[in-house]
């Protein structure tokens, strides 16, 4: 019984320690951001591996999520004769929730895990140490560009996801379900508010992008420098990012739409 409390206590202390390290780490990384200004190439490189290489999965998932939403929504709405509102249903679910959240979850799996593994391996193979000994701060050279790139890439990916989702829903609704073309768009336009829906979605994905990249680079930097440590850190990145995104989504939704 005492063992249980000891375990609980140790776990609690551990997680507080990690939280503290993560915060200090973030502050140091943020302090490194100004040094990127004269060297945009570093960020562009990371935008490529974080953003461009995630495009495929985002495009495919976006289109399919949109099409499925249309099919499912149609079945429900048609019983009330409200299938004209299909566009509204799809657009609001994508813009407010699915776009930012699903993009963030896919991001954690595709880009976040890769970030953690890359930085973790750099640590394991002494590349970070080597950099320090060459008087190059890995915080500025390695961590800061990745953090910034993740922050920039996420809202763009989420916008692409939502847009393609709506397009996918449009094709399914109009071509196969027989929803009126004009009604689909006009209903959507009168119900969707730019500030309320589109911008709030963008704000959400900015927050998610920040948190997801923070977790990914921190886990990589903080990992135990062994192959097992890297693999555990990679798993933690995906799990922690997903949990953080879902939790934050609840809070943000409550604040924005509550």
């Amino acid at each position, binding site marked *: 019984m005492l063992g249980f409390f000891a375990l609980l206590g140790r776990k609690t202390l551990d997680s507080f320690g990690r939280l503290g390290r993560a915060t200090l780490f973030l502050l140091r990384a943020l302090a490194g951001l100004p040094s990127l200004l004269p060297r945009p190439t570093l960020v562009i490189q990371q935008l490529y591996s974080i953003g461009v290489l995630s495009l495929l999965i985002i495009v495919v998932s976006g289109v399919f999520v949109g099409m499925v939403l249309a099919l499912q929504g149609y079945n429900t709405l048609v019983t009330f004769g409200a299938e004209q509102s299909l566009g509204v249903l799809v657009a609001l679910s994508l813009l407010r929730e699915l776009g930012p959240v699903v993009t963030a979850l896919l991001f954690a799996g595709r880009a976040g895990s890769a970030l953690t593994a890359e930085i973790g*391996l750099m640590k394991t*193979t002494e590349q970070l140490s080597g950099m320090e000994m060459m*008087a190059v701060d890995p915080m500025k050279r390695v961590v800061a560009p990745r953090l910034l790139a993740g922050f920039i890439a996420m809202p763009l990916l989420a916008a692409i996801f939502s847009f393609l989702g709506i397009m996918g829903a449009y094709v399914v609704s109009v071509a196969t379900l027989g929803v009126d073309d004009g009604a689909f768009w006009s209903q959507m336009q009168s119900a969707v508010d730019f500030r309320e829906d589109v911008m709030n979605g963008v704000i959400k994905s900015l927050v998610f992008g920040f948190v997801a990249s923070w977790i990914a680079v921190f886990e990589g930097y903080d990992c135990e420098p062994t192959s097992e440590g890297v693999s555990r850190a990679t798993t933690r990145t995906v799990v922690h990012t997903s949990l953080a995104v879902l939790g934050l989504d609840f809070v943000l939704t409550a604040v924005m739409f509550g």
Partner: protein
Amino acid sequence: MTSAPADKPSDVLVDVKNLCFRRGGRVIFEGVSLQIRRGEVTAIMGPSGTGKTTLLRLIGGQLRPDSGTVTVLGQNVHKLGRDALFRLRRRMGMLFQSGALFTHQSVFENVAFPLREHTDLPEPLIHDLVLMKLQAVGLRGARDMMPSELSGGMARRVALARAVALDPTIMMYDEPFAGQDPISMGVLVTLIRRLNDALGLSSVVVSHDVVETSQIADTIHVLSEGRVVESGSPEELARSESAWVKQFMRALPDGPVAFHYPGPSLEDDLLGVR
């Protein structure tokens, strides 16, 4: 302990005084003092696990000692601010055991890295400098290869070219000979000595390879159990009376360091109750 002749203080590049360092309750160093002189190849030797690599990291300022001081080029490493420490590190080169090459960059880019980071040299000049450094380690022809295509010995030579790219004052080698075949070992031995003399460096070699290190070192410090047990030239150490140094230098399997790890006697283990 040999009493070294009193040198001029400017000859001492690295001065380690009464260094104590603990990690996770384990004592690694307990009052280590040693000096590294200009122009020499100084070897720090000792069995695995005596914290030789840790010593290099303490000198490079990557770790903090519990007590004692490390003075490099007249500056107390652990009293420096981050910027001053980074300025000091530009004058130190370090060759890691793994090479620590950037795996996503070619050999050329790896060697160019410190030049691009710390200088504003135009691209053609960087190109020439990198090729000269690669020429010095005999790998000019491998400039477009990726680190994963290199053999262990070649990777270490590339790392060496990168470490000397900024013409450091002090070069530190972490186990440069570990896990190398005889040919690349020979190449590295000659390279370390040649670079030291040609570029006017001072080198610190951390190693447990007695034969190779003895060939090139001017001074050897032998570490054991957190202390310097003996210092001197390779010849002096070879004549040492200390049983421990004898065992280490001649690679004898049994001696003060027992062949058997401490445990219950064999009879007890075999015949004892299971």
